[in-house]
């Protein structure tokens, strides 16, 4: 079935199953029977990409059309990259094993900044010219989506267009348009001008960016009839939005391998550092009947024995009781576990928890994010120390003796006290263990503290904030390490160099395109993988391009500075973000969206409807 060269390549790599496709549920169409072939590229390994719900939704949606086919491509691991180069074989899809460059549309989902080099590598291995300006024909049309395109400026040189927001509807609109223009034999420029008229489609080449002498953006000007501001697309009603009735069941082990469905979109919490909490607004609930039906269909067709209800904060789902009762009415009999991955242990009714007999947790995790109440208020993480200690106490009584605590270092307004506070909170958790009169004899407690460096992101109230310099972060890490006096608390600190690059690219502009290309040519890829990350090469790339990382990462921006993403609208208004930013500077928390609407204006995207309002939690 494979030709000789493919067999040779596959037998030379460690995990050939990443490239062979053929899984249950994979769709292989006859290419002559469709008008548009879409290569959906996930710029990371098969195991990570196949764990992604969005991929499965778009795959089903496109393949449900008679006139289009969607095939998958993942970033080949280093060993496969070597083979492709050795035999001079262009990157191919899993389904037909046809070269990616033969497809009409090639779409990348950009889930994290550190996958940008993988996108370039995949284009290059496909033998597709990297820069949009070097590609003259209509196809392959290179498109991008995913949360990172809320500021796609750093990749603006490489992609032809971006789909902003939720893909369920806009993907179909785009395929329809491309089909029409392919038939007509339109020029690429003509197609792009028309595409820019679709809501949610951003065509970077139709915008001119000018810069001030100090390096900041002076203006962003739309041309050729493109809208001056591009709004993200949302689906208004999740119950009627497309959801596949069956899914691909990977044949090799992947990270998350189970029935997954969303229970609601958006988050009511408004933690000020969390981009997802703002990007996915307004809040839209899915009804228990629909979730139940979708879980049933996927479980039956896949044979999975676990269901994962996904959302940004599962315990905030308004009809959880009803949902769980529906689910366990059949999952128990069929030996299916129900898991709630984003559960906040602090506000979930214990008896509901007990109903989920199948919920297994290997260790207990909390994310207080900051060490003092003052800083938690400033970042709007509404967890109190008492809540953390209370839950820790309960779990120690329940026989646990290991707790993981997640924090961030370098948050806006952070002081020495806040950093030391992390150690103090960890110590108090240790103390709780020893207060428990029934603690298991001879057993000790371990509290693992893990810190990440804060990365300021667009469309959050912290989008104007500087990131701490590498030296400052390291100083704070040292301060924290010295404040920990017991061996019962262990500390691990996230790589601050990686966070620094994330900060640069998250809020970058088009001038980063050449840095990205230079770094890629030096061999940077799989930057998100610890053992692959080469900060030295990145530094060289910035130096050679005379671009300063500090300018992007460590500079405080004024509210009136033109931001590189000012022509992009994700629903949350700038004045709302400024209000929240000011409150943060005053260490003042905001109520959550169910308690009180803070007027973020994202509801306007949905005709004024936001499900967080006027609803009571049952």
């Amino acid at each position, binding site marked *: 079935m494979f030709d000789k060269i493919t067999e040779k390549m596959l*037998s030379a790599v460690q995990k050939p*199953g990443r490239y062979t496709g053929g899984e*249950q549920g994979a769709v292989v169409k006859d290419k002559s029977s469709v008008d548009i072939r879409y290569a959906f590229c996930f710029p990371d390994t098969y195991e990570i990409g196949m764990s992604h719900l969005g991929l499965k939704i778009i795959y089903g949606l496109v393949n449900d059309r008679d006139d289009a086919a969607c095939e998958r491509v993942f970033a080949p691991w280093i060993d496969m990259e070597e083979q492709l180069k050795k035999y001079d074989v262009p990157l191919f899809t899993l389904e037909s094993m046809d070269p990616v460059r033969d497809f009409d549309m090639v779409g990348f989902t950009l889930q994290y900044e550190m996958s940008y080099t993988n996108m370039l590598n995949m284009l290059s291995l496909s033998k597709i010219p990297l820069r949009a300006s070097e590609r003259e024909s209509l196809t392959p049309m290179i498109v991008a989506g995913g949360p990172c395109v809320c500021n796609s400026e750093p990749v603006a040189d490489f992609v032809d267009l971006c789909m902003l927001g939720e893909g369920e509807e806009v993907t179909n609109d785009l395929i329809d348009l491309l089909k029409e223009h392919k038939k007509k034999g339109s020029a690429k420029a003509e197609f792009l001008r028309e595409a820019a008229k679709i809501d949610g489609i951003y065509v970077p080449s139709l915008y001119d960016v000018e810069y001030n002498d100090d390096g900041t953006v002076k203006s962003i000007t739309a041309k050729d009839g493109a809208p001056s501001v591009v709004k993200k697309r949302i689906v208004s009603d999740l119950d009627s939005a497309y959801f596949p009735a069956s899914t691909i069941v990977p044949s090799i*082990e992947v990270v998350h*391998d189970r029935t997954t469905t969303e229970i609601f979109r958006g988050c009511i919490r408004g933690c000020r550092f969390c981009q997802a909490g703002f990007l996915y607004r307004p809040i839209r609930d899915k009804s228990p009947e629909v979730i139940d039906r979708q879980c049933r269909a996927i479980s039956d067709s896949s*044979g999975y024995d676990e269901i994962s209800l996904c959302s940004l904060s599962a315990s905030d789902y308004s009809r959880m009781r009803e949902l769980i009762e529906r689910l366990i009415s059949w999952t128990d009999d069929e030996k299916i576990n129900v898991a709630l991955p984003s559960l906040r242990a602090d506000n979930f009714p214990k008896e509901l928890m007990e109903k989920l007999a199948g919920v297994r947790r290997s260790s207990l995790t909390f994310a207080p994010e900051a060490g003092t109440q003052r800083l938690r208020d400033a970042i709007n993480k509404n967890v109190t120390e008492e809540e953390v200690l209370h839950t820790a106490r309960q779990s120690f009584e329940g026989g646990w003796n290991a707790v993981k605590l997640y924090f961030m270092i370098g948050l806006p307004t952070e002081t020495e006290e806040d950093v030391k506070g992390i150690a103090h909170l960890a110590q108090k958790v240790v103390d709780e263990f020893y207060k428990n009169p029934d603690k298991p004899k001879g057993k000790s407690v371990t509290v693992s503290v893990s810190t990440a460096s804060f990365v300021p992101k667009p469309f959050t109230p912290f989008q104007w904030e500087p990131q701490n310099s590498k030296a400052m972060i390291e100083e704070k890490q040292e301060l924290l390490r010295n404040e920990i006096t017991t061996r019962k608390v262990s500390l691990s600190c996230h790589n601050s160099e990686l966070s620094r690059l994330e900060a640069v690219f998250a809020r970058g502009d088009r001038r980063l395109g050449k840095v990205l290309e230079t770094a890629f040519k030096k061999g940077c890829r799989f930057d998100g993988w610890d053992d692959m990350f080469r900060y030295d090469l990145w530094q060289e790339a910035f130096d050679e391009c005379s671009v300063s990382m500090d300018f992007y990462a460590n500079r405080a921006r004024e509210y009136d500075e033109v931001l590189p993403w000012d022509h992009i609208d994700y629903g949350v208004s700038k004045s709302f973000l400024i209000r929240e930013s000011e409150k943060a500077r005053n260490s003042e928390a905001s109520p959550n969206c169910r308690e009180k609407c803070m007027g973020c204006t994202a509801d306007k995207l949905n005709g004024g409807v936001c499900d967080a309002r006027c609803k009571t939690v049952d």
Partner: protein
Amino acid sequence: MRDVRLWIKKEGRAKYISHLDMNRCFTRAVRRAGINIWYTEGFNPHPYLNFLTPLSLGQESDGEPLDIRIMDDMQNDEITQRMNGVLPEGISVAVTSDCISKCADIAFARYTLVLDFEDEAKAQSFTNEARQAVNDGKLFAEKVGKKGRNKTVKQIDICAHIKEFDIKTDGETAVIDTVLSSGNDNLNPTLLVSALNGVIFKEELLHIRRKGFFKSDMTEWR
């Protein structure tokens, strides 16, 4: 409740699914097929599936025995039919039978090995020399293993594990039809090939397909 034996054909894309992943695949396939299978008891019950004979990554098979225990009286043919509707490309159930032979009675397995060469001349000289080497009975391979913390290297007398051996040239390929020890004293056919490579030269590409199993008296293992 009864035990049945599914004979799993594995070829094409599916040969790149590892032994461990086969288990995962079938756990789900059995559920999709709606076959009422026995679950192990205990804290974390899971469906009981027993692949009797591990097959290396990249090798094909006409029939790998998989024993399962079903909880109702579904007929063998229906099991075959249902399973074949839900399996990934390249995997199928050739037939479902009762569990006739005992696992411990597996003594030999038959393989077809196809070795690709650059040209016909190379294939021809490989064929001749391989035939000679097996006739001479002097073929050894090294098997790297582990004993506690230490790496061990075991010399394996390949010919002692060869029951039957036949080789012929077919264009640019050499085709070997061989019966090797299996079961407890299993010899992976790749070891035979690497021993041959040691005395001759390396093939370009190797295809291995397992054709069936035998008891020690060379009667069919079923």
